[in-house]
C-alpha cells in the first residue's frame, strides 16, 4: 500500500511541473467519483482520483436522509417500475428516460453491494435493510443510516477504493482540461498547500465534481460547490444541459444568520414532521397540485392515519415534491404568514416522542441544539428554502456517461439528465452509485478502444498556468470575496425560486459586469496555501454556471419542476419536447439552444403514465 501524502513534494524549481500518468483520472472523491474509481480499478485500469478537499470530506458526507432503491423491504408492493414512475413524475417527465430506467433497475443491487463492502444500514424488525418515507416516493424507499447516510457511504466507498488500488491526490484542485485534437488528454491542477502546478496525463477523465450552489447567498452547499466541473467542461467545448433546473430545498435553517441555508433533512417530514404558518395552520393542504391530488391526503385526519401506518391512507401534503413545498413556503412568507425570521415552522416535537426523534434524527437534534440552541423535541424549528441541488449538468450518453467530448465522462450531481426538472430526495445518492459505476465502465470501453495514447500539448498547459498566476501577479485588482458576494446577490435576487424575464435580463447585464471584475481579480501574497487565490480561481466556474442557469431559465418559457416563472405559469406541453443546452460559441460567448428530445420507448412511456394500481398488482 503506497504512502498517502497530503503534502506530496517540496518544490525545488519553479519551472519544474510534475506529471502523473494514469489510464483514468477522476476528479472528485464524493460518492460518484469513488464509485467510478472502484469500477475503473476493478477493470484493471490505473486510476487516479483528484479532489480539492481531504479524502472523506467531500460534499457527499453531508447527505442525511438516505438513498432510494426499490427493494420493497418495508412495503412489498414496491418495485423498479414504481420507482421509475415516481422519478419521472417528480422530474415532470423531462428526465432522460434511459437514465431513469437504469437508475430504478440498478439501485437495489448497488445498495446491497455496499453492504458487501462493509456498510450497515438501519434494519427493519425482521433484519432487512430498513427504508424510510421521503417526498415524492410512493413507498418507504430510502435505505439509510440514521440521518448520516452520506458518512457511511463515503467511508465504505473510500475504504474499498483504497484497497482496490486507487491512487488519491488530495487537496489538489483541477484547473482545466487538456486536449489532443478533439479528445481529452488530461488536465492541469494545483496542490492547495504549496500552490504547485501539476499535470495529470490520462486517456480518459471522469468528472464527479458536484454542483454550484455557492452561486446563491442562501445554500445548503459547502465551499466546494463552485461548479468547477461545469466551468472546465464548458471551456473545453462540452454541452451543459437543463441548467435552468435548480432545486431549492424547502427546509433550510433560517436562524441564526451565520448558519442560514444549512439543510434540515426531509427525513423530519418523512418521519412525521408538519409545516405550520404563524397562524398555526397546516398550510400545505392548500397547495396540492391537481396532478398529485389523487395520491395525496386532503384532510388532517387522513394524513394522521398515514403516519400511524394505515396503508389505505394517502400521503400527507408535506411530502409533495420539493419544488411544490418550496414554492408554498415562499408564498406563505411573502403573504405575511411567516415565522419571526422569515421562514415557516417545522414541527416534529408535538408529533413524535422525544426519544424516537433522538434515535431517528440524531444529527438534526444536535444541529439545532448546537447551532440554534433549540431543542427540536420540545419546540418547532424555523425553516425556509435553500439552494440545494443542480438537476442540470454536463450532457452525457445515458449508458456510457461520456460527454460530447471524446474521453470526458461525467457522473453524479455534475452530470445532467437523470433527474429532469426536479430531483426526488434520496435519488441522488443512488444516482451516484449507479452512474459512478457506469462511468467507470464507460471509461474502460473508451480506453480499450483507443489506438494510441493522447499527447499533452505544452502550450495549453502554459496558458492554463498563466491564467492562474496572473491573479497573483497583477499589481492591484478586485477582491475575490467581494466579487463572489456580488455574484451571489445577483443570483439570489434575480434568479431565485420565482423567476421573470425582466429580472433575469437584469441578471445577465450584472453578470457581464461581474465578468469584468473576475478578469481583474487580485489575490495578495504568494501561491503557498493562499485562500484568496483559491477563491479567485473558483470565480470563473461560478460565473459560467450562473450564466448557464440564467440563460436557460430565460429561454424556457414555462414553469416546470425546479424552474418556476411568474410570467409563464404552469407546464406547457410544447416545452416537454425540448432540453435547453448551453455551450461555448466560436466567438467565446455562451450559446444556448433548444434541442429536441428523443421519443421515449413505448414500454417506458406506458409505465411512466400508468395508473398506480395497475403497477401495484403487476398488470403492467
Amino acid at each position: 500500500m503506497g504512502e498517502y501524502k497530503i503534502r506530496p513534494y517540496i518544490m525545488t524549481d519553479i519551472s519544474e511541473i510534475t506529471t502523473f500518468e494514469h489510464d483514468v483520472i477522476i476528479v472528485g472523491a464524493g460518492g460518484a467519483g469513488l464509485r467510478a474509481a472502484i469500477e475503473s480499478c476493478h477493470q484493471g485500469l490505473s486510476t487516479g482520483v483528484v479532489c480539492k478537499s481531504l479524502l472523506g470530506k467531500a460534499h457527499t458526507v453531508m447527505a442525511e436522509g438516505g438513498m432510494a432503491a426499490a427493494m420493497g423491504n418495508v412495503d412489498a408492493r414496491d418495485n423498479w417500475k414504481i420507482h421509475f414512475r415516481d422519478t419521472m413524475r417528480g422530474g415532470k417527465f423531462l428526465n432522460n428516460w434511459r437514465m431513469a430506467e437504469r437508475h430504478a433497475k440498478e439501485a437495489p443491487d448497488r445498495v446491497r453491494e455496499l453492504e458487501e463492502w462493509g456498510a450497515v444500514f438501519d434494519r427493519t424488525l425482521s433484519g432487512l435493510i430498513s427504508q424510510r418515507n421521503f417526498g415524492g416516493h410512493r413507498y418507504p424507499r430510502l435505505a439509510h443510516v440514521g440521518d448520516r447516510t452520506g458518512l457511511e457511504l463515503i467511508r465504505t466507498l473510500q475504504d474499498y477504493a483504497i484497497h482496490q488500488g486507487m491512487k488519491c491526490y488530495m487537496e489538489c484542485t483541477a484547473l482545466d482540461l487538456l486536449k489532443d485534437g478533439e479528445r481529452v488528454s488530461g488536465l492541469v491542477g494545483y496542490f492547495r498547500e504549496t500552490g504547485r502546478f501539476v499535470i495529470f496525463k490520462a486517456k480518459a477523465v471522469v468528472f464527479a465534481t458536484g454542483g454550484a450552489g455557492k452561486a446563491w447567498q442562501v445554500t445548503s452547499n459547502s465551499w466546494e460547490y463552485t461548479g468547477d466541473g461545469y466551468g472546465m467542461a464548458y471551456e473545453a467545448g462540452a454541452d451543459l444541459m437543463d441548467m435552468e433546473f435548480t432545486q431549492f430545498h424547502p427546509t433550510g435553517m433560517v436562524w441564526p444568520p451565520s448558519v442560514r441555508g444549512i439543510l434540515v433533512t426531509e427525513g423530519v417530514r418523512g418521519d412525521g414532521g408538519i409545516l405550520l404558518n404563524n397562524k398555526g395552520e397546516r398550510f400545505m393542504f392548500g397547495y396540492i397540485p391537481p396532478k398529485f391530488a389523487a395520491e395525496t391526503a386532503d384532510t388532517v385526519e387522513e394524513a394522521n392515519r398515514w403516519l400511524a401506518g394505515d396503508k389505505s391512507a394517502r400521503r400527507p401534503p408535506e411530502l409533495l415534491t420539493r419544488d411544490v413545498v418550496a414554492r408554498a413556503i415562499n408564498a406563505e412568507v411573502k403573504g405575511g404568514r411567516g415565522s419571526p425570521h422569515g421562514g415557516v415552522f417545522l414541527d416534529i416535537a408535538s408529533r413524535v416522542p422525544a426519544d424516537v426523534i433522538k434515535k431517528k434524527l440524531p444529527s438534526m437534534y444536535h444541529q439545532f441544539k448546537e447551532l440554534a440552541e433549540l431543542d427540536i423535541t420540545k419546540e418547532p424549528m424555523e425553516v425556509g428554502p435553500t439552494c440545494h441541488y443542480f438537476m442540470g449538468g454536463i450532457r452525457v450518453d445515458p449508458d456510457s456517461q461520456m460527454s460530447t467530448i471524446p474521453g470526458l465522462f461525467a457522473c453524479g450531481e455534475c452530470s445532467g439528465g437523470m433527474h429532469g426538472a426536479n430531483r426526488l430526495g434520496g435519488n441522488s445518492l443512488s444516482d451516484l452509485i449507479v452512474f459512478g459505476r457506469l462511468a467507470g465502465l464507460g471509461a474502460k470501453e473508451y480506453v480499450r478502444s483507443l489506438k494510441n495514447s493522447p499527447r499533452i500539448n505544452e502550450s495549453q498547459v502554459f496558458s492554463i498556468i498563466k491564467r492562474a498566476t496572473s491573479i497573483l501577479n497583477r499589481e492591484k485588482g478586485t477582491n475575490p470575496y467581494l466579487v463572489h458576494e456580488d455574484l451571489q446577490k445577483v443570483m439570489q435576487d434575480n434568479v431565485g425560486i420565482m423567476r421573470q424575464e425582466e429580472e433575469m435580463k437584469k441578471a445577465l447585464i450584472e453578470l457581464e459586469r461581474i465578468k469584468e471584475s473576475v478578469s481583474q481579480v487580485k489575490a495578495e501574497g504568494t501561491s503557498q496555501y493562499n485562500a484568496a487565490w483559491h477563491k479567485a480561481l473558483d470565480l470563473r466556474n461560478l460565473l459560467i454556471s450562473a450564466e448557464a442557469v440564467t440563460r436557460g431559465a430565460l429561454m424556457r418559457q414555462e414553469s416546470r419542476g425546479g424552474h418556476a416563472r411568474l410570467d409563464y405559469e404552469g407546464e406547457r406541453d410544447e416545452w416537454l419536447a425540448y432540453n435547453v443546452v448551453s455551450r461555448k460559441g466560436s466567438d467565446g460567448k455562451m450559446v444556448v439552444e433548444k434541442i429536441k428530445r428523443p421519443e421515449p420507448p413505448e414500454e417506458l412511456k406506458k409505465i411512466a403514465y400508468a395508473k398506480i394500481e395497475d403497477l401495484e398488482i403487476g398488470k403492467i
Partner: protein
Amino acid sequence: METITLKIKRQERPEAPYYWEDFKVSYTPGMTVTALLTQIQKKPINDRGEATQSVVYENGCCQGACGACTMLINGRPRLACSTIADHLSAPIVLEPLTKFPVIRDLVVDRSRFFNDLIRASSWISSDFNNPDAGLVIPSESIQKSYRELSSCTFCGSCLEACPQYNSRSSFVGAAVIGQIRLIHLLPMGRMEASQRLSIMMEEGGVEDCGHVGNCVKACPEGIDLRSAIARIEREVTVEAVRRLLG
C-alpha cells in the same frame, strides 16, 4: 454592532516560526467560530488596523459532519463550524492542532492519521462477489455499537487529547482502534482480523494506550472509545494465546 476579539496563532510555512495576531471582528449572537474566521478572510485587517495575510483554516460541510474544521478553541480541540462564540470567554484563542505538523495558520498535515488507518488495515478489502461476504443480519446490540463507532468523522480530536499520541511515539490512537473494532463487528471484517491484530500487537498498537480516557471526553460524537479499546485489547490477548497454542 458588537465586536469580538480573536487571538490567532499563525505560521506562514511549515518551517517558519509562529506568532500571534489579534483580530477584532463584528459579531452577532449565534455566530460560529467558522463564521468569525470567514469575516477575517473577507477583510484581513488586524486589531492594529494593519492589512495582513488572510487567515487560513480548514472547513468542509459546516454542519459537524465531516470533521475537517478541528482546531484548538480556547485550548480544547473542537469543531469550529459547530462551536458558537456566545459561550466562549473572550478573547477567543484559536490554535492549530498540536499533534500534526502545521502547514499554514490553522491548517495541519494529517497524513499520519490517514497512513495509520491504511497501515492498520482498518479499511475492508473484501473481494467482489466474495461468497462469504454476503448480507448479514446484525443483532440489535451489534447495530447499536456499529452505529456509534461508524459516526466517527475522523476529526482527530481524540488524537489531540491523547498524551500517548505524539511525535515521539508511533501510537495509532483511539480513532484507528475504534475503526478496527467497527470492522470486527462484521463477519467479513473478522475474516482478516488476524492480520489487523498483528499490527495492534506491534509497537504503536493498542498496547501503547495509557488508559487516560481523554479521548472519550474530546470526541464530539460521544463515541465510547474506552470500551472499543478494551475490546481490541481482549482480541489481541485471545489472538496471542491462540498463536501460542498454534
